[in-house]
């Protein structure tokens, strides 16, 4: 937090001062201290547990449920006090942030509490509390988001556009977990402190499942990446190729605005696109000079072999199509099916661009690595004949903003016979030489 702009310091100071003033002038006559202690403890426990939904700069925890329960059960002053408990969170945060968070939860609690108190002046049955609670909840979430946005903008940690995107992700979670506050408050009159246990137990268990899901997902990705690498170990020069093609495909997919689940699918498709190459006999891959027609047929079949392996994975069909057709060309002269133009699945058109670019900018046994500029020039040259111009354009835009990490220089181990490819089927600048063919593939 050092080096915070002056405006941000002033903002933090203002928010903290406002919160402190509110806390000092509120009257606590009507606050039920027993409930307050229980809810404050609950707030702290929930806030210190790992978050349910967390993105880089913000987190949604079940502390929200406790906070909103206090809005109903304790009124503005009590809710502000419960919010102030954020000062004592067990999370490791810098003191300024701790102070600011405490202050902003005080303000949120007070605003929501006031709205709820104004809308339900007398004790009313729980059914009639739903609408006022909804208003209070929205007020709470809006106040919270506004205050967080303020500090992030003033400390220049984020741009408005980024924040809008993040808010869209956060708001449903905040509203959802906040609304459980009403459930706690509603059953409190009957079962007291058991209410939060009953309401939050399923959520704690859900959080466990979310964490397990994330861990399994990481394990899945690591395993997939490793197995793809294992397939590549045969050839020193293509190591890391799958990983880079996967990254490139994701760059393009993001640039052309694919949905997140499709981006996820194309990431895997990029990783797995060459798995079938293992079915191509090593001697064909390592052959120097002209390939016989059978040998070329073996190469042409590798996308199908890949498909054979991964068909059993419950993937999106799209990823399968992407792998099968990643060597089709826009002019219909690719393989294995010779599809043309729009017939080629979108995934395949994306993967083929990333695939070719990586092949051209990597070292091969028969030539040094091309520079980025050469790769771009080659993509431009083949745009419209081999590649979809829209995809190439998207890739070039993404290259400018995100850059590209070319493979490290290949160091061949000395003294051992080393297996390397003599021709690269991915490399459009150096087509495979096939007997009886004088046109470039």
């Amino acid at each position, binding site marked *: 937090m050092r080096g915070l702009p002056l405006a941000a310091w002033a903002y933090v100071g203002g928010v903290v001062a406002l919160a402190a003033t509110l806390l000092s002038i509120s009257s606590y006559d009507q606050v039920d201290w027993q409930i307050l202690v229980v809810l404050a403890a609950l707030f702290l426990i929930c806030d210190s547990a790992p978050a349910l939904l967390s993105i880089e700069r913000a987190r949604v925890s079940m502390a929200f449920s406790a906070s909103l329960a206090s809005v109903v059960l304790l009124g503005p002053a009590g809710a502000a006090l419960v919010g102030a408990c954020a000062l004592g969170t067990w999370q490791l945060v810098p003191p300024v942030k701790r102070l600011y968070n405490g202050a902003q939860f005080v303000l949120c609690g007070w605003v929501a509490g006031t709205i709820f108190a104004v809308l339900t002046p007398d004790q009313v*049955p729980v059914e009639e509390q739903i609408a006022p609670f909804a208003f209070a909840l929205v007020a709470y979430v809006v106040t919270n988001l506004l205050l967080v946005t303020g500090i992030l903008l003033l400390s220049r940690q984020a741009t408005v556009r980024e924040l809008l995107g993040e808010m869209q992700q956060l708001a449903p979670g905040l509203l959802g977990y906040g609304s459980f506050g009403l459930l706690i408050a509603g059953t409190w009159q009957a079962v007291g402190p058991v209410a939060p246990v009953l*309401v939050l137990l399923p959520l704690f*268990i859900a959080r466990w499942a*979310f964490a397990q899901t994330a861990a399994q997902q990481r394990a899945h990705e690591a*395993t997939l990446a490793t197995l793809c690498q294992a*397939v590549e170990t045969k050839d020193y020069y293509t190591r890391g190729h799958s990983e880079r093609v996967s990254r490139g495909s994701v760059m393009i997919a993001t640039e052309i605005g694919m949905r997140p689940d499709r981006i996820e699918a194309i990431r895997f498709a990029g990783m797995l696109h060459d798995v079938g190459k293992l079915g191509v*006999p090593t001697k064909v891959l390592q052959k120097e000079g002209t390939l016989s027609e059978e040998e070329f047929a073996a190469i042409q079949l590798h996308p199908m072999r890949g498909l054979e*392996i991964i068909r059993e994975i419950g993937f999106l069909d799209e990823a399968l199509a992407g792998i099968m057709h990643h060597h089709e060309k826009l002019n219909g002269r690719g393989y294995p099916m010779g599809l043309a133009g729009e017939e080629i699945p979108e995934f395949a058109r994306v993967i083929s661009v990333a695939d070719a670019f990586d092949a051209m900018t990597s070292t091969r046994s028969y030539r040094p690595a091309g520079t980025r500029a050469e790769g771009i020039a080659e993509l431009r040259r083949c745009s419209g004949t081999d590649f979809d111009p829209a995809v190439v354009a998207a890739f070039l835009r993404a290259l400018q903003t995100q850059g590209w990490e070319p493979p490290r220089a290949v160091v061949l181990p000395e003294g051992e016979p080393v297996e390397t490819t003599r021709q690269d089927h991915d490399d459009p600048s150096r087509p495979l030489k096939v007997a009886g063919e004088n046109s470039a593939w």
Partner: protein
Amino acid sequence: MVSHSRDRPAWQSLDSGQLAVLGTAVVIVLCSAAELAAHGGLDAARPAVIFGVLIALGELFKMNMPGNREVAPISTAGALGYALLLGVGPAQVVHSPLQVAAVTAGGMFAGSLPHVAVGRSPRLDAMARRLVAATIVAFLFRPLSGHLFPADLREPDWYGALALMAAVVMVAGCVDMTIAAVIRAETVRARFGIAFVDEVKAGYLLWAATAATGMLIAVATSVMGLAALLLFTAPILTTQFAFRRYAAVRMTYLQTVRALSRVTEVGGYVETGHSHRVSRLSVATGRELGMAEEELLELEYAALMHDIGQLSLGDPIPGGATVLASPAEQRRIAELGAGVIEQTGVLDRVARIVRRQSHPYRCESETAPPLASRIIKAANAYDDLVGDSTDRDRAAAVLERLRLDSVSEYDPAVVEALGRVLDRRTLRF
């Protein structure tokens, strides 16, 4: 191994545990129908119908957890809530335990209709278990529910009620897991004690969430009336969503490993189907030897990937049969494979199993390899020598050879277990 049941009536392929729980469920349904008829309909029809709808919706959104365990948390929570219900708003309710069974059965039936309509046959044993659990809770709790109201108060004694509810759902949970374990022990031929621990491990968290929601629904409906039902299923909805995603990711992971283990076949390093056959044989043998579900999953992963080290060889070894390669070569393949698996950073135990798969059982210089490694060693040798041949004499001869080698190479207990697994298979075909 499923195909053998095709040409027999469906009930003959059921194990005794499944038959027992289905029989119990049928008895419950018949009794509750008789009771309803004798009683002339439902007590307090409105809550009964609304809870029935909740149960039906829960059945509609049932899901499969890892290990092919069908669960329907919302349906179960609804049934538990109805069994534990003390009042609707200010009015006390006094429905009989059999009415709970009737409403649960009705809701489950209605909720399965859409599944049947799209051609998914319902898992009757899982449904029967859910019905039995709800009925147990109803029979334990409902007779006592009247005593929970202090004489002069309309409000029940909530803390007493909660304690009783918690105790009752815990008993029902134990019974449910016991039934599940009996059925599982029979279908996959595991030992009961091990199956029970597996069931508890796989199910206790979801059961806790479901039970808490059932109690919450019962309390909230008494406080706020039936409107609460909708609001108070929100927490379990979140839980269900989380577990559904978890199950999906687990499934994808397993599919990925299963699929990618075939790269060795496509590369011509091993015979087609080798990895899958070795993994099936290993898991069956491991189960025969009493391994728990978690260990079996690791065993399956290790067996699927046991030949992955061959990818680092320039050319396939002849015939792909590692059992015919020299011990040094076998060790090298195992080392290379373990190295690959270690790189994932998440499968260290699997890597350890793969590393020691080639080691002999008895060796003076080192400790015996882990059980999983010994199983893979035997299963791999068997499959290398028999392959996909169905010739019984050849299989018997190979098994005999493994037995003879079990003085030093193979663990005799593993070879015997393998023999039992193969015997069963021969009988079934």
